[in-house]
C-alpha cells in the first residue's frame, strides 16, 4: 500500500524541521505525488543536494512505496 500525503509530510518535516511542505496527490490514487519543499537549510546547496536531503528524510521509502514523487525544492524568499 502506498503512503498518504500526511505520512509523506511528517517524514519530510522530521528530516527537515524548518521546511514548509506542500503535498499534492496528483491522481488521487495514493501513489503519485508532487511535493514542494521550502527550507532555509537548502541555501547554498545544489538541486541534487536539496533533493537528496528530502529523499533522506523519506528514509528509504522513495524507491519502494513511493515510486512517483515529483519534487520541487526552494529556499524561502
Amino acid at each position, binding site marked *: 500500500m502506498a503512503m498518504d500525503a500526511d505520512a509523506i509530510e511528517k517524514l519530510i518535516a522530521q528530516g527537515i524541521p524548518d521546511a514548509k511542505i506542500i503535498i499534492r496527490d496528483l491522481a488521487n490514487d495514493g501513489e503519485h505525488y508532487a511535493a514542494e519543499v521550502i527550507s532555509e537549510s537548502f541555501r547554498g546547496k545544489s*538541486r*541534487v543536494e536539496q*533533493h*537528496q536531503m528530502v*529523499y533522506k528524510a523519506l528514509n528509504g521509502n*522513495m*524507491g519502494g512505496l513511493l*515510486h*512517483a514523487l*515529483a*519534487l*520541487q525544492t526552494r529556499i524561502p524568499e
Partner: protein
Amino acid sequence: MTSVHDFIDEAIKNNNIVLFMKGTKNFPQCGFSNQAVQILQYLNVPFLDVNVLEDEDLRQEIKDYSQWPTIPQLYIKGEFIGGADIMKEMFQTNELKELLETKNLLTK
C-alpha cells in the same frame, strides 16, 4: 568481465551525455523517462540512453552509484545532474541549455 559499477564508470566517462532510463530513447517505458528524453531531444543534443530495465543489477547499482533513488538519471560529462524534476526545472529556467553551452555540447 566488467562489473556493473565499471560499466557505469565507462558509460559516463566515454559519453558526454548519458541518460539512465526505463526503456530506450525511441521507446521510453515510463512518463518521467519520457519527459527526460523529450527535453534532450528538444535541445537537439546527442546522448547515450541506457535502459536499466534490461538488467536488474544495473537498475540497483545506478541508484547506489549516484546516491539517487529513482530513474531517470542524467549525467553530463561525468557529472550527475539530476532526475526528471531537476531536468524540467533547469530546462524551464534555461539553465540546462546554458550548462550544455558552457560544456560545448550544443549542436549549433
